[in-house]
């Protein structure tokens, strides 16, 4: 290679390096949604109520040209990680979609979400139209940080009416009735309960309900308040003993540890007649409606509240699940963005057409005085049942994995998985969970 060629090569290499350096520094400083020319932004989830959200924002933007809100949709799991990074980096959208509970509290502690109490006081309709038990999940330390934006999601017991007719049984109202059904279904080679064990969070529903039925809401309140040894409460130990009795009696579908809720395999077991019952959130109904409409139109799907536990201290009318999803406003929003967001929360969220859209999709929004509307909907029986259940509940417990800190939630799901597989005893479960208190 001649010297001249080599020089020009060096120049080229230098140029390449310079371009690289520029592009590298540009890549590190990419802009987030926060700096988009002052316009308010929102991030929401795909699937579920996506259509309601889309049409709501479209309506809002066409009616309020001066205060448009730019909305983007993300998949559930991807969103949960993306939003946390964005909030931590001060790049959150104006409207933050959330679940309330522990994660909302961590945002509040980090000073990343705005206190909405002044807005709520100035404009009482912001709050007064919602059911109080649902609003609670958006209140931290007496201040309002989040307002509901979709349907209530209580957990209940679904059952296959055909299979119950075959063995001539009634759906279980109490725990002993549930236990008595197990051998009857097993004798016919039908799994008594469907369970998506691979997804882990469905296991939590049994734990939440049994602990509440046995000990009332106080037991979990102690856990959430990080009281030492709160997981060793007799109610937790007994609930876990009852869970293992259920497992050992063959209550759950064989191989439940590899049944996956993301693919709705658990629901498929129920509507294909392989399993007789399933404890699941109210979102199971719209899912079954899309996957197997005949099962619902044929009147084969039954539903009752989670069984009562005789002798337990808890109120059998208590409900566990997700009270709703919520909107919070980023503390980093500009005054204009914040104004647009509050205006949207006041007039755009859960207004007439919004509620209609949720009800049509099979959801029950946490709004007062909904009975006449539900009676006219396409699934009046089911929707009224959910509405009554959630409205009359003395206590609506937010799912523990959302109510606790993320570190505790992860340990809880892992240890529940082991408990259901008989890999640990109830005492070992309590010990392992006590070690996570305060994390």
């Amino acid at each position, binding site marked *: 290679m001649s*010297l001249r060629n*080599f020089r020009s090569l*060096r120049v080229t*290499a*230098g140029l*390449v*390096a310079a371009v*690289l*350096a520029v592009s*590298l520094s540009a890549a590190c400083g990419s802009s987030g949604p926060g700096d988009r020319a002052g316009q308010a932004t929102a991030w929401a989830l795909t699937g579920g109520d996506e259509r309601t959200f889309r049409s709501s924002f479209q309506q809002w933007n066409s009616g309020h040209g001066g205060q448009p809100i730019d909305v983007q949709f993300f998949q559930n799991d991807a969103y949960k*990680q993306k939003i*946390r*990074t964005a*909030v*931590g980096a001060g790049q959150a959208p104006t409207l933050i979609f959330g679940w309330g509970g522990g994660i909302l509290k*961590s*945002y509040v*502690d*980090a*000073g*990343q979400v705005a206190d909405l109490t002044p807005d709520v006081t100035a404009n009482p309709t912001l709050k007064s139209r919602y059911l109080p038990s649902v609003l609670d999940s958006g209140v931290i330390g007496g201040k309002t940080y989040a307002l509901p934006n979709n349907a209530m999601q209580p957990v209940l017991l679904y059952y296959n009416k055909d299979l119950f007719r075959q063995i001539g049984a009634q759906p279980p109202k109490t725990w002993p009735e549930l236990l008595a059904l197990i051998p009857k279904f097993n004798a016919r080679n039908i799994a008594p309960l469907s369970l998506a*064990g*691979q*997804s*882990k969070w469905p296991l939590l529903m049994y734990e939440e309900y049994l602990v509440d039925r046995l000990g009332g809401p106080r037991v979990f309140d102690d856990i959430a308040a990080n009281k030492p040894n709160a997981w060793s409460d007799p109610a937790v130990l007994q609930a876990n003993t009852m869970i293992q009795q259920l497992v050992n009696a063959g209550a759950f*579908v*064989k*191989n*439940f*540890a*590899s*049944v*996956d809720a993301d*693919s709705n*395999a658990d629901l*498929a*077991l129920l509507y294909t007649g*392989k399993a007789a019952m399933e404890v699941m959130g109210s979102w199971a109904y719209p899912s079954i409606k899309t996957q197997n409409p005949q099962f619902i139109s044929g009147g084969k799907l039954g539903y009752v509240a989670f069984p009562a536990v005789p002798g337990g201290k808890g109120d059998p009318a208590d409900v566990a699940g997700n009270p709703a999803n919520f909107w919070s406003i980023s503390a980093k929003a500009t005054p204009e963005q914040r104004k647009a967001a509050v205006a949207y929360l006041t007039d755009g969220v859960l207004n007439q057409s919004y509620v209609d859209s949720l009800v049509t999709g099979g959801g029950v929004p946490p709004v007062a005085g909904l009975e006449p509307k539900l009676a006219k909907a396409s699934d009046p029986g089911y929707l009224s049942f959910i509405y009554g259940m959630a409205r009359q509940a003395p206590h609506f417990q937010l799912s523990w994995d959302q109510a606790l800190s*993320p*570190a505790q*939630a*992860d*340990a809880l799901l*892992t*240890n529940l*998985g*082991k408990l259901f*597989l008989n*890999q640990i005893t109830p005492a070992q479960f309590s010990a392992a969970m006590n070690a996570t208190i305060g*994390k």
Partner: protein
Amino acid sequence: MTAPPRVRARHGGPTIWFTVPALAFFTVFAIVPLAVVVVLSLMRWDGLGTPAWTGLTNWTGVLSDPVTGNAIWLTVKVMVVSWLVQTPVSLLLGTFTAGRQRYRAVLAVLYFLPLLMSAAAIAIAFKAVLDPNFGLSKAIPLLGQDWLGSPDLVLYVVIFAIAWQFVPFHTLLYQAGVRQIPAALYESAAIDGAGRVNQFLHITLPQLRYTIVTSSTLMLVGSLTYFDLVFVLTGGGPGDSSRILALHMYITGFASNDMGRASAIAVILAAAGLVLSLGLTRLSGFSRMRSQQEGA
């Protein structure tokens, strides 16, 4: 030493400036993050707010946590069993596809097919096939095991899926290696009366020495970072029966939001990878790179 280094560089080969782009990339995307991770492992940070110094709390926490111990043990198991499964299979397949048999090209295409798929797609496919209620086990009762739900089986299912994904790549390495071996070696061996087995044992295997080292290094170091496939296939479950170290790091960081502890696990992973690859190249004489074809 009369000639200044500058002149020598100009005449003796490309200057050091050629390494600048690569070094810039390496610094920005490897050295800086690594340093940040080491610093983060000494802090408590939940991804929000400001990180706070905690000294060695994360390290003592991670090292005394039984979940970490279990994760390390599982990772070692995955590493060793993966190597034991993948090496012979890809060595034989590679030797076979390097030959000139009839239909070889067709079969080679089939063998290399998994190479085209992303780990997530492979995991979803395996999940569907192994579903105990709606999957393959219903069609072939012999395969009716609770593959992904049994704590004793799940790790081997994961290892099988990993092998299915990576054997084609290593086959490709061995195929290239075998094709580099001079035909004269085989011809003279054939004249001396060596059969196929003897040719493989005494010519192919020794000649592939450095290919084996490369492939093994990639396999062993790579198995430290297996994550995507396991994450989608099992999520670490049931319980923590398939929660290998890389997955443990991810869950600690992005599900538990404990960036400090996750960083400590990341440092352990990086250190293990470094020691492993350095050790392997040293032990095997790979770093000296002597020719294997003297006299050929």
